C-alpha cells in the first residue's frame, strides 16, 4: 500500500503538461497540495508518537515505544523520496541498521545488560529499544513531525491557497468592485507563478530537517555559531525553569524544618533532605557542563552500620541502640543533619531563586522585553496590525520613535552578555554547593581506604603467586639438578656413559629452570620496562601480539616506576582481552603524557560488547589502577569498535634517557 502510494505520487508527472509553462506550474500547485496532505500525516504521526510516549516514558510501559517510531518512519521516507522526485534533492535514509538477533552464549543463555535470559525475546527487544531510541535520526524525525506541518505545510499549501483565494475574491468581489476581477486573477496567477520555486524551497527545507547528520566543517562552524548565540540562551532559559522549580522545593524544605523542629515530627526531614539532593546535584553538573565551573559533590559518604558492641548494642554518637533498624534510622539522621553540606544546600535553596534568578533574569529579560515589549509592538503598529498607543508596550519614556532601536539594543546586549552571565551563574552555584574542606577530606579518606585495601590484597595475591611459582618451578628443578649431579658423581667412575646421559639431563633441567625464572621475572617486572621505560615496553608488547598493532608514544621522559609498571600491566591486560575476546584484527595504542596525566588509549576493531561490570578482568584493572587514582573508561558498543582509555595522574621521574 505504501509502495503503491509512492508510485502513484511519483507518477503525477503527465509528460505533456511539463512541456508548457502553465502545465509545469499547475503541476507544482497540485504537488504542493499532495505535500500539504503529507504534512497532515506528519501531524498525525506526531500525535501517535505522543500517544505512545506518554504511557511509554511516563508509566514505564516501554514495550509501547518502538512500534510507533518504526511504523511512522514511512512518513519521513515518503517526504525524502518526494524531495528527490519533485525537488531534485537527494536525501539518503539516515537510520542505523537494525541490530543483529541475539546470539546465545556457550551455556545456551542470552546475555543482556548483565542479566541472563533463557529466551532471546527480552534481549532482542532491549536491543531493538536501544537501536530505535539511540538513533539520533529518530529524534530528528520527531522534531520534523512537530515543525514541518506548520512550516513545510504552509509552504506547500501556499500556491493552492493563493489561487483559491484569488479566484474566490475575483468571483465574489466582481459585482461590487470592478478591480476585484483583475486583482483576484493576479493573485491566482502569482500563486501559480511561485509554485515551482516554493516546491524547490520545500525540498531544501526537507533536506535540512531529514538528511543524515554529517559532521563536516560547515556543520562544525554552524554548531560553533549556534553554541555562541543560541545554546547559551537555551541554557539560561533551562536554568531559569530549574530555578522556578526550586521555589516549591525550597518551600517544602522550610516546611520540613518547621515540622521537625517546631512540631517534633523528626521523621519527615531526612527523606526531604536526601530526596531533593538531586536538584542540587543537577545544578552542580550543569555548572560544570554549561558554565565550566567544576563543583564536585560535597556530601559525606553514607556510613555503614557500626559494629556491634560487646554489650549487644550499637553506638551512634553517644547514644546506644538495640536494633539495627533504629540504629540505621538515627545514623541516617546524624549523617544528614551533621553534614554541613545539608545546611549549605538549605541556604542555597532559599537564596538561589533571588540571586541566581535575578542573574538569569538580566539577559533573558533584556531580550524578552527588548523584542516582545518594545520592538515587535512598534513594528506591528507600523504595519497597522495593532492600534497605536493605549498601553505601555512599544514606547520608551513616552516616545514611540525610540522603541525599535532601544528594544533591539537591549536584546543585543542580552545576547552579548549571556555567556558571561552563564559563567557568573556557575560561580554563584559554587559558592554554596561546592564541598567544604571537611567533606572533601572525608571523601578522600573513604577512597584511600578502599584503594588501600585493594592494593594490599592485590600485592598479597601477587606474592603468593610468585612464591608458588618459585616453589613448584625453579626451586624444584634446582633440587633435581642437585640430585642428578650427585648421581653423576657416583656413576662417573663405574659407568661413564650413564653419567654423560645424566649430564645432558641436568643441563636441560637447569635450562628449564632459567626459562621459568625468565617468565616469572616478566610477570613481576618485565626487563624491557626496566631497561627502556614504558614507551618501548609497550612497543615490545605490541610486537609480541599476534595482531597488526600500531603504537604511538609521546612521553617526555621516564615515569615513576610504580606507575610505569601499573600502566604496562594494564596495557598488557587490555591487549590480551582484545586478542582473546574481541576478535580484533587491528589495534592502535596511544601513550601520551599531558599535564601530569598519563593517558593510554587502546583502540581495537573487534566486535565490542566489553562490559567492565561483567568481566572480572576489566574490574580488576580498575581496582589496580585505583591505587594510583587512575581510571579506566571502556567504550565498547555491541559490534565494536572498542576503545579503552586508561588515565593515571603521575609525575615524570626523569627526562628522557631512551634513545628511540
Amino acid at each position, binding site marked *: 500500500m505504501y509502495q503503491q502510494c509512492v508510485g502513484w505520487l511519483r507518477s503525477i508527472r503527465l509528460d505533456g503538461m511539463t512541456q508548457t509553462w502553465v502545465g509545469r506550474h499547475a503541476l507544482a500547485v497540485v504537488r504542493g497540495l499532495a505535500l500539504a496532505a503529507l504534512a497532515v500525516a506528519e501531524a498525525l504521526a506526531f500525535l501517535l508518537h505522543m500517544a505512545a510516549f506518554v504511557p511509554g516514558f511516563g508509566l514505564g510501559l516501554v514495550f509501547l515505544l518502538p512500534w510507533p517510531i518504526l511504523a511512522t518512519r514511512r512518513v519521513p521516507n515518503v517526504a525524502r523520496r518526494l524531495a528527490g522526485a519533485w525537488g531534485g534533492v537527494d536525501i539518503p535514509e539516515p537510520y542505523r541498521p537494525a541490530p543483529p538477533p541475539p546470539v546465545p552464549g556457550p551455556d545456551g543463555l542470552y546475555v543482556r545488560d548483565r542479566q541472563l535470559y533463557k529466551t532471546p525475546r527480552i534481549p532482542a527487544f532491549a536491543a531493538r529499544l536501544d537501536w530505535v531510541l539511540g538513533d539520533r535520526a529518530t529524534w530528528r524525525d520527531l522534531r520534523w513531525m512537530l515543525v514541518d506541518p506548520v512550516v513545510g505545510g504552509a509552504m506547500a499549501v501556499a500556491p493552492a491557497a493563493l489561487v483559491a483565494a484569488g479566484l474566490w475574491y475575483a468571483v465574489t468581489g466582481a459585482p461590487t468592485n470592478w478591480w476585484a476581477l483583475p486583482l483576484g486573477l493576479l493573485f491566482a496567477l502569482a500563486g501559480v507563478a511561485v509554485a515551482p520555486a516554493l516546491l524547490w524551497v520545500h525540498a531544501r527545507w526537507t533536506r535540512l530537517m531529514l538528511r543524515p547528520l554529517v559532521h563536516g566543517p560547515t556543520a562544525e562552524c554552524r554548531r560553533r555559531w549556534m553554541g555562541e548565540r543560541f545554546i547559551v540562551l537555551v541554557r539560561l532559559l533551562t536554568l531559569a525553569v530549574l530555578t522556578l522549580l526550586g521555589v516549591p522545593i525550597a518551600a517544602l524544605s522550610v516546611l520540613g524544618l518547621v515540622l521537625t523542629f517546631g512540631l517534633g515530627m523528626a521523621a519527615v526531614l531526612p527523606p526531604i533532605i536526601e530526596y531533593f539532593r538531586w536538584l542540587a546535584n543537577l545544578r552542580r553538573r550543569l555548572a560544570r557542563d554549561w558554565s565550566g565551573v567544576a563543583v564536585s559533590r560535597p556530601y559525606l559518604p553514607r556510613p555503614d552500620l557500626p559494629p556491634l558492641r560487646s554489650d549487644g548494642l550499637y553506638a551512634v554518637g553517644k547514644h546506644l541502640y538495640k536494633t539495627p533498624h533504629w540504629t540505621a534510622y538515627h545514623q541516617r539522621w546524624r549523617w544528614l543533619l551533621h553534614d554541613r553540606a545539608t545546611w549549605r544546600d538549605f541556604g542555597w535553596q532559599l537564596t538561589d531563586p533571588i540571586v541566581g534568578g535575578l542573574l538569569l533574569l538580566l539577559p533573558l529579560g533584556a531580550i524578552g522585553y527588548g523584542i516582545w515589549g518594545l520592538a515587535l509592538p512598534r513594528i506591528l503598529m507600523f504595519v497597522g496590525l495593532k492600534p497605536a498607543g493605549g498601553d505601555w508596550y512599544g514606547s520608551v519614556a513616552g516616545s514611540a520613535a525610540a522603541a525599535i532601536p532601544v528594544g533591539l539594543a537591549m536584546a543585543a546586549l542580552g545576547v552579548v552578555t549571556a555567556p558571561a552571565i552563564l559563567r557568573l551563574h556557575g560561580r554563584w552555584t559554587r559558592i554554596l554547593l561546592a564541598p567544604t574542606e571537611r567533606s572533601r577530606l572525608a571523601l578522600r579518606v573513604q577512597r584511600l581506604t578502599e584503594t588501600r585495601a585493594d592494593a594490599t590484597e592485590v600485592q598479597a595475591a601477587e606474592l603468593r603467586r610468585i612464591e608458588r611459582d618459585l616453589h613448584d618451578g625453579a626451586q624444584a628443578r634446582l633440587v633435581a639438578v642437585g640430585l642428578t649431579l650427585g648421581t653423576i658423581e657416583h656413576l662417573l667412575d663405574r659407568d661413564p656413559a650413564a653419567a654423560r646421559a645424566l649430564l645432558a639431563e641436568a*643441563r636441560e633441567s*637447569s*635450562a628449564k629452570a*632459567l*626459562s621459568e625464572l*625468565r617468565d616469572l*621475572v*616478566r610477570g613481576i617486572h618485565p*626487563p*624491557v620496562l*626496566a*631497561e*627502556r621505560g614504558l614507551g*618501548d615496553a609497550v*612497543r*615490545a608488547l*605490541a*610486537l*609480541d*601480539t*599476534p595482531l*597488526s*598493532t*600500531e*603504537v604511538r608514544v609521546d612521553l617526555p621522559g621516564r615515569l615513576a616506576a610504580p606507575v610505569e609498571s601499573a600502566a604496562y600491566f594494564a596495557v598488557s591486560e587490555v591487549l590480551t582481552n582484545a586478542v582473546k575476546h574481541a576478535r580484533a584484527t587491528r589495534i592502535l595504542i596511544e601513550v601520551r603524557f599531558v599535564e601530569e596525566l598519563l593517558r593510554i588509549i587502546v583502540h581495537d576493531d573487534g566486535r565490542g560488547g566489553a562490559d567492565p561490570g561483567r568481566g572480572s578482568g576489566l574490574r580488576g584493572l580498575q581496582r589496580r589502577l585505583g591505587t594510583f587514582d587512575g581510571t579506566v573508561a571502556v567504550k565498547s558498543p555491541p559490534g565494536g569498535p572498542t576503545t579503552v582509555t586508561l588515565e593515571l595522574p603521575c609525575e615524570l621521574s626523569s627526562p628522557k*634517557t*631512551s*634513545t*628511540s
Partner: protein
Amino acid sequence: MRVVLAEDLYLLREGLSRLLTAHGFDIVAAVETGPELLQALTGLRPDVAVVDVRLPPTQTDEGLQAALAARREVPGLPVLVLSQHVEQLYARELLADGTGGVGYLLKDRVFAADQFVDAVRRVAAGGTAMDPEVIAKLLTGTDRAQPLARLTPRERDVLELMAEGRSNAAIAQQLFLSESAVGKHIASIFGKLDLAPSDDDNRRVLAVLAYLNADSR
C-alpha cells in the same frame, strides 16, 4: 681471534672468558660498564664483541646502546649480544642496518658450548646468530603469517634454522638432510616468499630476517 667481553656479573664474566679462552679465543678486554665497553670497542677494534644487554651504571640497556653506538662508528663491527631475556624490539634494532655481523642470544645458550662458540665464530665472520626464541616470535607475530602458511613443515624448519643464522651445512646436519636437499628447500622458500635468490649464505639470512622484520609496525 680477538674478543672484547662485557658483563657486569663477576661469575658470568669469568665463566665466559674461561669458556672462550678454552676454545682458542683471545680475550683482549673484559669490561663491566657501558662507557668502558664503548671505549674498548672503538679503541681496540676486536674481531668480535660479546656483550650483555644490561650494564652499569644505569642498569638499563647500556650494553646494547654501546654496541649500537660502536657499530655506527665502526660499520659492520661484529657484536654478539647476550641477555637474560630476548625482545623482538632489540632484535629489530640490531638488524636495522642490515649489514650482518650481529648476534642476539639468550644467556642460556652458553650451556651448549659448541653451539655458542659456533655462533660467536659466525658473527665474527659477518654472519648472524639469532636466538630461536626471537625467530619463533618473528614467525608468529607478524603480518606475514599468510605467505608463511604456504610453507611445508619441513620448509618451515629450514626457514627457522636459516633465520637463526645457520649455514646450509649446519642445517643439513641438524635436520639429517643432504646439503643439496637443503638447497632445494631454500630455493622453494625464497620462491614462495617472493624473495630474490642468492648464493651467499649470509646475504640469504639477512634477506630472510629483513623479510620477517618488515611489517607495518
